[in-house]
Structures are given as C-alpha cells and as structure tokens.
C-alpha cells in the first residue's frame, strides 16, 4: 500500500506537468457523468416511474453503481489499458521487478482525472441518500456499504479478466466493454427492468445484480430477506476466479519482439 502511494505520487507529479490537460479532463469526466444524470432526470419528469421504481429510488441505484464503478476505475484502471502495457513491452519491465505484478499494473496507470466522475457519484449519493425515503437504520447503512464494496470487487474482477485476455490475444478486446462500461450503463436502473433473461445472466454469469439489484431490493424495503443484504459479498468471491485466470495468463505471456 505504501508503495502504491509512492507510485501515485510520482504519477501525480508527472500529470501535473500538464496542468491544463489535467484540469480539462477532470472537468470533462464530470460532465460526461452529469449528462447521464440529466437524461435520467428528464425522463422521469415525463414518466414518474420505471417498472415500479420511483425516480429517487433509481437515482440511489445509479449512484451506488456509479460510485462502485468509479472507485474501481480510479484504482483498477491500469488493467483497462493493459493491452497497451503488453504491446509496448512495459510488462517486461514489470516482470523484472520484485513486486506483485497486479500491484504494479494497477500502480502504473492511476487516473486522477477520474476523480471528476467519483465526485459526481459522491454528489449523487449525497443527494439520493436523504431523498430516497429509506429509513437509514444501521442494517440499511451496512447494506449500502456492502453494495459499494461488492460493486468495487465485481468491476475490479471484470477489469482483471479483461486484462488477462490480453495474454492470449493482443487485439479486439472491445467486447469486454459490454461488461465493464456496459455494466455501468445497465446499473443505472435496477436490473429487473431489463427482463428475466438479463437478470439471470447478470446474476449467474457476471454477478452485477448481486451487488446491485438484490441488496437494493432489501434497501428500499421490497423484501425482508436478510440474505439479500449479504449477496454483495459474493462479488468479493468473484475476484478469486478472476485472479486465477490472471495467473494462467501470466504463464502464457509471450512478450513482444525487440
């Protein structure tokens, strides 16, 4: 962790060399997320509710997903640009340093400009938490925290899988964005509105619904089943196969010619 901070400080110092660019991209990130928020706001202005969920409920759902995604993105973004790290040979360098590879990959690309998006998510949470008509008892707060942790882990796991695929092929990974960025977009609304099929897929294959939909039902009082509260922890377990896949990938690492 201390080393991660050192990396962070050196990258921050590097990015600060281009001050204008830094400020502009932070603002840009903020605006992108903000427009989605506006779109949702105007839609609810006309329709009042989606599939039985009110605007403030959906907003809470969206805020949680966005916060989890932004956190994952802020810290685990290194994996997103991993194909670049492999194809320009940077990974060779990582392999000859006596530290865990994952830590090094994470630390090699820390995106401070994502703070704009994280800020947006925090603002939305601040707005959504009091307006959601949820009675914030201690178990509800715990649920919210678990949702954030579970979401962070699931998105991180997805980024790791994304990166591990790079060991086998260095091209055409865009389809993985369906799960990462797509997951974020899906996560705007409670998963059930997409229908049974999508819900099953996002429960058993890519466990996005586990940290988003089910605990969310518990949060807004649609169910009293306490099990739903702890489902985000499955998201944490999701990391294990992801990391195993990563290890297999490293054995297959081919490096690039030089």
């Amino acid at each position: 962790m201390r080393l991660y901070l050192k990396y962070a400080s050196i990258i921050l110092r590097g990015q600060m060399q281009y001050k204008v660019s830094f400020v502009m991209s932070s603002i840009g990130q903020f605006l992108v997320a903000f427009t989605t928020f506006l779109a949702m706001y105007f839609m609810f202005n006309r329709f009042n509710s989606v599939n039985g969920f009110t605007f403030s409920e959906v907003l809470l759902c969206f805020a949680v997903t966005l916060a989890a995604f932004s956190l994952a993105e802020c810290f685990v973004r290194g994996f997103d640009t991993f194909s670049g790290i492999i194809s320009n040979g940077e990974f060779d360098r990582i392999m000859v340093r006596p530290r865990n590879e994952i830590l090094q990959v994470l630390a090699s690309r820390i995106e401070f400009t994502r703070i704009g998006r994280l800020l947006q998510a925090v603002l939305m949470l601040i707005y959504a938490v009091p307006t959601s008509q949820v009675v914030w008892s201690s178990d509800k707060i715990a649920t919210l925290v678990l949702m954030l942790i579970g979401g962070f882990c699931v998105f991180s796991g997805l980024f790791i899988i994304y990166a591990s695929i790079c060991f086998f092929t260095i091209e055409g990974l865009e389809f993985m964005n369906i799960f990462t960025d797509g997951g974020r977009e899906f996560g705007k609304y409670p998963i059930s509105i997409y229908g049974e099929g999508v819900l099953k897929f996002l429960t058993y294959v890519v466990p996005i619904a586990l940290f988003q939909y089910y605990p969310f039902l518990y949060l807004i009082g649609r169910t009293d089943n306490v099990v739903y509260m702890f489902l985000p922890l499955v998201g944490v377990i999701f990391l294990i196969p992801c990391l195993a896949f990563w290890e297999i990938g490293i054995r297959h690492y081919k490096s690039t010619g030089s």
Partner: protein
Amino acid sequence: MIELRDICKTFKVAKRNAGLGEAVKALFRREYSEIRALKNVSFKIDEGEMVGYIGPNGAGKSSTIKIMSGILTPDSGECVINGRVPWKERIEHVKEIGVVFGQRSQLWWDVPVVDSFELLKDIYRVDELSFRKNLNELTELLDIGEIIRTPARQLSLGQRMRCEIAASLLHNPRVLFLDEPTIGLDAVSKIAVRNFIRTINKERCTTVILTTHDMQDIEALTERILLIGKGKILLDGTLNELKKRNSTYKTLVVDYTGERIKTVSGLRVTKDLDGHVELVVDTTLLPVSQAIAIISSQVDVSDISVMGATAEEMVVSLYKEFEI
C-alpha cells in the same frame, strides 16, 4: 551461477495475407505457424564472468534473456540462476538481477530521473544508507550528477542510457543483463558506457551478459562469446580463439617506390595501384614476417601496415559458415 539446459521455446505466430478481405477472414479462421525460437539451448556462466551473446536479428537472443530474467516461461528445459528457477520464483529471482533493455526505458517519463531512482529504491526495498552510497558511486562513475534533476523526457539518448544503467544497478544485483546497451549512442557515450560496464564487472564482481550488434562492444568488453543462430547455440569460446580461427589471412597495405612486386605462393595481390598495393597473406603457407621480408627485398617500402580480420568481419564469416 547461471546454468541453462536444453531450453526450448516455441512461439505461435498468426499469419494472414495483406488486405482488408484477408483481415476479415482472419477474424474467423486463423492460420498459425510455429516458430521455434530456441532449440535445446544449453550453457553455463560462472560468477563474475562477462559474456557477449551475439547473433543476427531474430536468432533468439532476446528470448533467452527474457527466460533468464523470468519474463518468459520456456516450453521445456531447465534454467537455474543463483540456485533458483527464474519463472518459478520470480520475485526472489529478480531481486538479484538487473536488466537494461536498450530499446525501452524504465524511467518515469515526466519526472526528474532522481524521482524514478527513489521509487526504484522502494520497489526493491533498498535501505536508505546503501541506496545513498550506491547512488553517489553510480552518479560519479557515470557522470550523471548534473542531469538526474532533469525529467527523463528531456534527456538525450546518451544521457538517458547512462541513467537507465544506473537505475538497474541501484539494488546492487549479482547478475546484469544488457540488451543492446549501446544502440544508437554516439562515440563518447558508447565509450563511457563500456568503461562503466568494465568497472562494475571488476569492482563488484557482477556477472554481465551482453547482447549487442556492435562488435566493438564485444571487443572492448567480453572475453567469452556465445553465438546463437536460428535458436541454437553455435559457438561458445573466447574472442581470441575466434580470432585465431579466422586469422589465417592477414592483409598487408604497402606504399612503395620501385618495380612492381612479384608474388610468391601464399601471397596474393587484391589491389594494385601505382606505388600502393594491398596483399593478402595466407599465414599457413607464409608467415607475415617472411612476407614483409620478401616485399622489402624487392622494393623500397615507405609505409606498411598489417591488418587482421576485424571482429565485424569475423562475425560475418561466422554467420556465413553456419548459414544463419
């Protein structure tokens, strides 16, 4: 110290013809061809040795280096360095090696070099005291005291390469892998880098393995040479042995006044101008001293020089000999 036994490595390379149509086709059906990058590579290197690893492009030099530094896992074979298998105990292994890739930087691009050094200190868990001592020594030897406060991106290639080498020695490794360390450097930087490598090898007893295409590097630095071609080790010997192998022919360049020189067996004229002649002596038939005696008995020599094969020529003849 370093021992490789029967290391094999195969790469799968996707192939397709040029053109958009072919590219689309390749999406669905790929044709792979296997390239056997390394075939039963075996060698042994002792502590404190300095070894030149040479061979044409694509011969397998970099692959071998990558296996020895724990980046690649070979298909079969054994490799033990300092008693460890690099790809199995990667983290322990890489603490004791330093690697310089001449074509790639390991410094953080936008920050002063000394900041990169500080981070490397933390990555390798070097304690403050030995880090300071080491850094002072390295900056002095490589003459980089002036430039380590400059961001890496503003350094010239020669300056940066010196910083790269310093960076890979901060943790005082026992083995140093140099992959084309003098590529693209000017004469002054090259000589500085060579002198430094020699000093490090002598004073710290660091084992150095050097790949290069620059034969002057080899001549200036290494005693022992490993020649690899098409994935096989073709030759393992000292530079002198190599030279002897190729030194049966010497070239004589003579400036003279007088009649034309009459040749004898073992002496052949390759270039004949008025008052200037170049001859090749086959030393198995005629010792050089005798050849000179014959020439000076015939004409009035004003200048004479003897040239053996250069390392460059030797390597070319080796490549030809092994058809690589």
